[in-house]
């Protein structure tokens, strides 16, 4: 199998993944997205890969590349729809609600005044988050009306339009940790707790991770959550609510795991690489059944055949765009 691993910065995780692919006998090509020019009508060099595994640190770069590649018929991991859902906390919340996955209460508003009402509906403390963001950046706990008013004013004056949406979440009075479950191919393969004295328990913010057992409840909830967003490989963050039990907070489509292999005893990178290969294999067999040509390529070939000088008769293959 030939896998392209796209990236913008090569971290420890990407190194571990490259090693895992090579150990499994796969041919993996790391591709720095900053060096690529995409042609949305032609697969070009990408035709040689059975799947593209996105590991870009930049969400913009991920979305740009995966939109084009998936449109060209390349099997991307994760699929575009899963990335778009996970990358946006509102989209994630909506997917959870539709699927009946327990999640903290949310109120949404598009204006500062209605934003204040949204916050007051939830009561204090509550949590305000940018809908797109990670590593705990700008995730704020609001303890009273004064804080709510000032944060909304700051956003209005200093923030970009992206921050004009008020996504307010019920504050969960969790113990001094949250839980992260790694889900690969529909299986909950490992779990960690992230412990901190700070209410933000991102390891990027100094929380300390330790391995924990994947209980049947954790496995059930996290696999259902991942299924609701359609991700192949993801890390699910859960909060323990004293009254309602486990709630799913969010899903990360491009997870970090460098320290989690030792704390959990699970070679996460190996399981991830193996699952990526399985997907690539399945996609390659399916493509072989289709004449080994990606749909858009087929469409483009067909339209070229149709217009080509001296082209005799109708194109053999069905053209989607033609």
């Amino acid at each position, binding site marked *: 199998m030939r896998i392209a691993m796209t*990236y*913008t*910065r*090569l*971290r*420890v995780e990407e*190194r571990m993944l490259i090693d895992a692919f090579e150990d499994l006998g796969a041919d993996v090509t*790391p591709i*720095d997205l*900053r*060096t690529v020019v995409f042609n949305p009508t032609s697969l070009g060099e990408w035709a040689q890969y059975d799947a593209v595994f996105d590991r870009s*640190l*930049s*969400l*913009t770069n991920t979305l740009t590349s995966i939109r084009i590649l998936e449109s060209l018929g390349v099997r991307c991991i994760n699929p575009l729809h899963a990335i778009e859902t996970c990358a946006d906390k509102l989209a994630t919340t909506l997917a959870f609600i539709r699927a009946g996955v327990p999640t903290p209460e949310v109120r949404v508003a598009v204006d500062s005044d209605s934003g204040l009402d949204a916050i007051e509906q939830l009561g204090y403390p509550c949590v305000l988050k940018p809908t*797109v*963001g*990670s*590593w705990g*950046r700008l995730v704020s706990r609001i303890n009273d009306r004064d804080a709510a008013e000032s944060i909304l004013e700051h956003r209005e004056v200093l923030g970009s339009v992206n921050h004009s949406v008020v996504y307010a979440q019920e504050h969960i009075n969790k113990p001094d940790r949250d839980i992260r479950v790694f889900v690969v191919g529909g299986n909950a393969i490992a779990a960690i707790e992230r412990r901190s004295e700070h209410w933000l328990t991102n390891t990027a913010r100094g929380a300390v991770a330790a391995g924990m057992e994947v209980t049947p409840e954790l496995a059930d909830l996290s696999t259902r959550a991942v299924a609701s967003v359609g991700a192949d490989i993801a*890390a699910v963050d859960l909060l323990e609510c004293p009254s309602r039990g486990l709630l799913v907070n969010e899903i*990360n*489509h*491009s*997870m*970090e795991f460098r320290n989690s292999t030792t704390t959990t005893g699970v070679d996460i990178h190996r399981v991830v690489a193996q699952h990526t290969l399985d997907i690539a294999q399945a996609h390659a067999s399916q493509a072989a059944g289709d004449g080994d040509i990606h749909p858009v390529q087929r469409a483009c070939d067909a339209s070229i055949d149709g217009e080509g000088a001296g082209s005799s008769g109708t194109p053999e293959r069905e053209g989607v765009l033609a």
Partner: protein
Amino acid sequence: MSTATITATCPECDATVNFDRAPLNGEIARCTDCSAELEVINTDPITLELAPEVEEDWGE
């Protein structure tokens, strides 16, 4: 290949940065002397630059 043969110079403090294998473009390394976070911007010869600050759209 001995592990000490792949080296580059820290742009911040001039110390030698060792790689245990040939790095790729975009690879992140840390200088053990000044602990600056560095990025490989060229692989032949290996050239390092201070890694950029976290951008707003970076993350998991």
